[in-house]
């Protein structure tokens, strides 16, 4: 049966900003769906608030709405676009939840829109704990014993039967927010209370603990004729108890016999039929008791998920694309397998390699957060590695993580083994028992220390098959250490086990280059093998490669011109989807120019690692060794490293040294802008101002500099992204601590100490150049003052408060710098404006985080143009020579993961903490800002009570804001000091006691939801405990909390708009048509 012809226009809902548990995998799936449906002749309407996605590029849909993902907006778009169907299964939990809410409100029925992929009934059955349990039991599928409760009292009654420890899972939340394992009564009450609050329907499941059981996932697809296939099986390295997003996972499953696997497979098929997912993909999780094999189903996602992105990359089977096709009526046998061409998609991929996924966390950004891994996901990104053995894949994955380890390296200085054996043992034991980000390294450490596999197994419950494999790696490391010098056979074996050159060099205490040149001399190079869905049973046409050390190489090297694009590796705070967006554009541009594009990346969530994005995909860690192996094989015209963020940039010098041409801005220019000493000289030369600063290599030097320029100062290491270890420091004691941290974060790199410009306005400028012509792409004014990391600030384009002459001065300064650095490609500069003077904060000769946002705002694909410029085209030839004037306003707002880390202060600073961004576009600033706030789930109230507590220096500016709020009929609550200041200015305010001094205080108001907005600026360098409590409680209870005066001012304007209820929706294509009229 071919595709449906009764539907013509399909609305796809995206997943919004990148947050923990919803990252770029949904851009990957959404992009595939958009492409597939348009190829089949459907009109596609898209709703997604995230501008950093490929799917929101104007070419990927007929009408793209970069608007907040809410039911109201959805309805407005439906009224305007009149789609026939809505596909909600490709935008993660966000899309599913919105579709479910809209369905409950009868919106789809009202406008005659059909939900395709999954209907409201099956969504409810899969997501609602009780309905799910009933359905599974009816189908004869075993589950952990459990009960659904709606109150704390009910919960306490229930736990008497089920017993502790038990697992608590709130219904309808993202990535298990608010869930957890309770070992004692106190924990139990805490988790239940929080879970009830975070569940959209105040429903929580209490479940028999299956802690320590083996955990599996199956990716299942079903078509409308009830044909079902399992795309991939995944086994979790970390047993039950750790969220699968926080687990190291392996594909395919490794330790089940065929009988057990087939039983699981059969149950998964039963489950998808029972839940009634008519078409598309689902992810189903199982637990197995390792003692007796009892198998229970854990949960099911009736949609494309993070694991399906992983499964797609692991097998070559494009789940999202096929899901979209199934949703419009195709059957699996009607869809060809892209990779083999001759065989259909109605089969189960079989693989002949081992895939390992390792999560990446960001605990260094949230030092107060509990780093224990539980059933609530905490990681921000992941890396995938492919090898012919688990050992090889694991080590490739670990070096691809870029966490400072080149493989399974030590985390404890071996000298301590002798000096403090007991402490070391205790440290290892603790890290084995409590799942944590470094557990994999501690397992290795335990083996080095002499723990047996059995001991480690009893402490971790990790399957012994995994442990013995790790032991083989460590045994070889020990052998290598005792083996004096290198020989070809030993080195070959090391490479087969996945050891990197750097790691081997570390073990042998030699230089990395020595390992490399030894390898060269003995011609020990990797071969590349294909990912082909079928274990070589059929010929593959898709060039998707991974490296391994074996006999036969399968690469086909074309004689044409080729360019390598280096991707950004795993998502992390500071380096995420924005950079992948740029890499994908680079690939598109190369294709347009007839140049072969070779993508190197190891992040399975991305569009860049889709096998049809580039001419060839090398799914490899982005390290110097791995990249040089590829360039040796391919001999490309050059490498593009401007787009992948800091990861590829860190390889610039190494690649240059190896004689690999770097396209675009020269390596020396990159160094001149990254090395702060050199950069200072450059600024002096062209007469640009910078805050007084100095360079230190030790605490002693730092102290001296700080004394000269005076506190407060900002300390930052060079060569880091996302402001890692950057801090504003007010005194010497704190300075010492931070200098130490900075040296740790970036060893052997000097530390820059700047005078901190308090209360300055910060500006971001993006520019494109071809070495001759330079064009400013966008000037963005930050809404928060300087001192807050640019990745965390809300920004507005065009600037909303800067006078024209200041904008002109910044423009000139930018052009001067671009000329001096001979920018070929993209550049980003940050300025701070203080006392009517622009100061240069930093210059990055590469694509910045704002490129996708600016590209969407001005309707110009900047990364694509930059790529073409790097290939030698001029901007003149490309037709982009003039800055674009905007007839509307675009606001970029950041989204933070604070709700994942309870107790963490939400104060912003120079260290970046946001995971994602949204865009609000409207005719004026207030409207655009409001949209950005709604899109970022910062719910601004229309009425109610506002709590104000500000530091002394902010009190004056606060008066105007409070007055405005009063006019808008808000009740004002304040701390005593602030209340007094307000009253003195004729503004009525109710004063609340300090938290320690009486009740009801603000915490009671928060808990009772009697306060609707909080404005709290920090009182000084050390935030008072009270303030941290207020802010973190606000996050917990979902009350917006504003921590800067400028943010408060803007929010009040937005509230005014909100009260008028005049939000309108407009597609990006319509905005761009407006642009064409005036430019």
């Amino acid at each position: 049966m071919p595709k449906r012809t009764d539907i013509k226009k399909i609305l796809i809902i995206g997943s919004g900003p990148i947050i923990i548990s919803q990252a770029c995998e949904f851009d990957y799936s959404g992009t595939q769906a958009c492409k597939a449906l348009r190829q089949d002749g459907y009109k596609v309407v898209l709703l997604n608030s995230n501008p950093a996605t490929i799917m929101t590029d104007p070419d990927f849909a007929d009408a793209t709405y970069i608007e907040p993902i809410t039911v109201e907006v959805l309805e407005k778009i439906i009224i305007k676009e009149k789609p026939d169907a809505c596909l909600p299964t490709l935008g993660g939990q966000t899309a599913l939840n919105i579709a479910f809410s809209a369905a409950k409100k009868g919106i789809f029925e009202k406008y005659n829109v059909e939900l395709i992929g999954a209907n409201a009934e099956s969504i409810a059955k899969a997501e609602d704990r009780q309905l799910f349990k009933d359905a599974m039991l009816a189908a004869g599928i075993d589950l952990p014993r459990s009960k659904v409760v709606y109150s704390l009292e009910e919960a306490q009654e229930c736990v008497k039967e089920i017993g502790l420890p038990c697992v608590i899972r709130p219904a309808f939340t993202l990535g298990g927010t608010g869930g957890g394992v309770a070992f004692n009564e106190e924990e139990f009450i805490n988790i239940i209370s929080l879970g009830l609050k975070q569940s959209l329907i105040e429903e929580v499941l209490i479940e028999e603990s299956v802690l320590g059981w083996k955990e599996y996932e199956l990716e299942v697809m079903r078509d409308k004729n009830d044909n079902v296939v399992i795309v991939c099986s995944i086994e979790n390295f970390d047993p039950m108890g750790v969220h699968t997003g926080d687990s190291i996972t392996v594909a395919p499953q490794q330790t089940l016999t065929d009988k057990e696997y087939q039983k699981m497979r059969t149950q998964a098929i039963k489950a998808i039929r029972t839940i009634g997912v008519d078409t598309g993909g689902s992810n189903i999780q199982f637990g197995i008791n390792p003692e007796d094999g009892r198998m229970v189903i854990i949960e099911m996602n009736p949609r494309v998920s993070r694991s399906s992105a992983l499964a797609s990359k692991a097998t070559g089977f494009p789940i999202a694309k096929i899901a979209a096709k199934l949703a419009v009526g195709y059957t699996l046998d009607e869809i060809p397998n892209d990779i083999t061409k001759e065989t259909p998609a109605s089969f189960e991929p079989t693989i002949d390699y081992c895939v390992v996924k390792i999560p990446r966390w960001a605990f260094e950004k949230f030092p107060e957060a509990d780093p224990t891994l539980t059933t609530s996901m905490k990681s921000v990104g992941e890396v995938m590695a492919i090898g012919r053995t688990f050992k090889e894949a694991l080590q490739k994955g670990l070096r691809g993580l870029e966490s400072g380890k080149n493989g399974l390296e030590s985390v404890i200085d071996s000298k301590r083994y002798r000096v403090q054996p007991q402490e070391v043992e205790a440290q290892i034991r603790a890290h084995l028992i409590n799942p944590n980000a470094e557990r994999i390294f501690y397992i290795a450490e335990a083996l080095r220390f002499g723990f047996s596999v059995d001991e480690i197994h009893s402490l971790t419950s990790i399957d012994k098959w995994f442990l013995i494999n790790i032991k083989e790696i460590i045994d070889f490391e020990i052998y290598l250490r005792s083996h004096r010098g290198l020989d070809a056979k030993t080195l070959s074996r090391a490479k087969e086990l996945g050891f990197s050159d750097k790691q081997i060099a570390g073990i042998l205490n030699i230089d990395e280059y020595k390992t490399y040149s030894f390898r060269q001399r003995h011609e020990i190079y990797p071969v590349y093998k294909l990912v082909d869905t079928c274990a070589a049973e059929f010929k593959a046409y898709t060039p998707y490669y991974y490296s391994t050390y074996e006999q036969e190489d399968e690469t086909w090297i074309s004689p044409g011109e080729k360019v390598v694009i280096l991707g950004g590796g795993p998502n992390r705070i500071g380096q995420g989807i924005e950079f992948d967006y740029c890499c994908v554009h680079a690939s598109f541009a190369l294709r347009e120019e007839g140049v072969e594009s070779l993508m190197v990346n190891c992040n399975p969530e991305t569009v860049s690692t889709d096998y049809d994005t580039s001419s060839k995909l090398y799914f490899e860690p982005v390290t110097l060794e791995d990249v040089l192996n590829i360039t040796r094989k391919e001999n490309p015209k050059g490498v593009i490293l401007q787009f992948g963020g800091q990861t590829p940039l860190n390889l610039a010098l190494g690649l240059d040294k190896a004689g690999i041409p770097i396209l675009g801005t020269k390596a020396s220019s990159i160094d001149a802008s990254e090395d702060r000493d050199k950069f200072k000289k450059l600024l002096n030369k062209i007469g640009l101002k910078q805050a007084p600063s100095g360079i230190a290599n030790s605490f002693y030097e730092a102290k001296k500099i700080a004394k000269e320029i005076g506190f407060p100062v900002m300390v930052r290491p060079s060569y880091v992204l996302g402001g890692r270890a950057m801090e504003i420091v007010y005194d010497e004691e704190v300075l010492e601590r931070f200098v130490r941290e900075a040296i740790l974060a970036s060893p052997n790199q000097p530390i820059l100490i700047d005078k901190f410009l308090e209360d300055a306005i910060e500006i971001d400028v993006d520019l494109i150049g071809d070495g001759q012509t330079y064009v400013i792409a966008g000037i963005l004014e930050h809404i928060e003052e300087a001192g807050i990391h640019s990745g965390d600030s809300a920004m507005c384009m065009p600037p909303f408060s800067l006078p024209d002459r200041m904008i002109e001065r910044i423009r000139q300064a930018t052009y001067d710098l671009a000329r001096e650095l001979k920018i070929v490609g993209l550049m980003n500069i940050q300025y701070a404006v203080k006392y009517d003077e622009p100061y240069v904060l930093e210059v990055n000769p590469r694509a910045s985080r704002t490129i996708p946002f600016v590209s969407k705002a001005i309707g110009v694909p900047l990364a694509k143009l930059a790529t073409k410029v790097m290939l030698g085209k001029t901007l003149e030839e490309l037709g982009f020579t003039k800055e674009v004037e905007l007839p509307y306003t675009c606001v970029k707002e950041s989204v933070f993961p604070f709700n994942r880390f309870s107790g963490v202060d939400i104060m912003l600073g120079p260290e970046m903490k946001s995971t994602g961004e949204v865009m609000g576009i409207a005719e004026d600033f207030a409207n655009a800002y409001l949209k950005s706030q709604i899109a970022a789930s910062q719910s601004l109230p229309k009425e109610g009570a506002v709590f104000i507590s500000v530091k002394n220096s902010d009190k004056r500016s606060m008066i105007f804001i409070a007055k405005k709020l009063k006019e808008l009929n808000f009740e004002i609550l304040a701390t005593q000091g602030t209340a007094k200041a307000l009253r003195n200015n004729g503004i009525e305010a109710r004063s609340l006691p300090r938290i320690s001094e009486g009740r009801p205080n603000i915490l009671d108001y928060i808990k009772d939801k009697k306060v609707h907005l909080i404005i709290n600026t920090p009182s000084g360098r050390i935030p008072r405990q009270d303030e941290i409590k207020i802010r973190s409680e606000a996050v917990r209870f979902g009350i917006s909390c504003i921590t800067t005066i400028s943010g408060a001012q803007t929010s009040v304007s937005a509230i005014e708009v909100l009260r008028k209820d005049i939000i309108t929706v407009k597609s990006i294509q319509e905005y761009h048509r407006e642009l064409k009229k005036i430019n």
Partner: protein
Amino acid sequence: MKKACILLEDGFYQEGLSLGADSETIGEVVFNTSMSGYQEILTDASYKGQIVCMTYPLIGNYGVNPQDVESSRVRVDGFIIKERSRIVSSWRAEKSLEEYLKQNNIVGIDSVDTRAITKRIRAKGSMKGLISAVDFDTGSLKEKLERFPSIVGRDLVKEVVCRESYLWEEATQEEEPKEKPTGTVAVIDCGIKFSILRNLKNYFEKIIVLPAEASLDKILELNPQGILFSNGPGDPEPVSYAIELGRKVIERLRNKELKAAVMGICLGHQILGLALGGKTYKLKFGHHGGNHPVKDLKTGKIDITSQNHNFCLDIQTLPRDLEVTHINLYDKTPEGMCHKNLPLFSVQFHPEAGPGPFDARYIFGNFKKMADSLS
């Protein structure tokens, strides 16, 4: 660990490590794409005469247990893998793969590029191969390989078939019969897989296995409700006694002298095809794996099936009273047929799984239904 080497007919030579008996073996090399189920594969008598190369690289992870066997011993003539597991991880495991191969005196090799071997077989077709842990002289190895006879035209069934008939008692572990099993089924053993018998046990009360050389009278004595021609190794054409038996059974059906449903699986399917006047031919590299899509032409439904065969019925040669019921969606080869007038049908794939998906197990239910409809 001892060194071993592998040599293929096309000259491919690689050294690896000996796995199992430190000796030498020759056979037809085939690759199997199942990611789990190595124990079932090793014990499947259909692999007689063949050396199996597993495309999945990590083998032996869950060891070997007493339950997951498809016959009483290891039947492959050699085993090629990328990496053996150094540990056994399963609550059911009793020994390691290595011990198992050693005890069964099977020669194997690991640490070789199994993907390279697979690609050669794909490109050039199944070919003879040799594994040795004793001889590393390529000249001498080559000579031995050349002397070894081809699988075509060899009767391998006689090497694996049971000597005497026996009664089978065990049913499948995974599911309970929906109705009380009734009636008798006679299984013509050409190298039967236990999984077929276990599945039959869910439907029939008495399962009697007879050697392929058994006489028709012996079968008729049992008064069977159903007769099943089993799977087995190699080329069906030389298995003349089984084809002859098939002819006799069909003749009795035609003459209404026999009231029984007849079913064939894999080699059994080919034997029935030959008995009905069709011809078989050898596929380039066969079907060996657990992921082949098979479409039921009547319902349009697709089953993911377990497959293990090198020979195939030629659709063109089938008489008109036969209908093709299933096709393989990979290469459009026939996967099942039924007789338009007689209670007879057969499938090329393995509905019993072992290893592989359970999708097609309902076929045994169909067989029982057909048998019941006759009485």
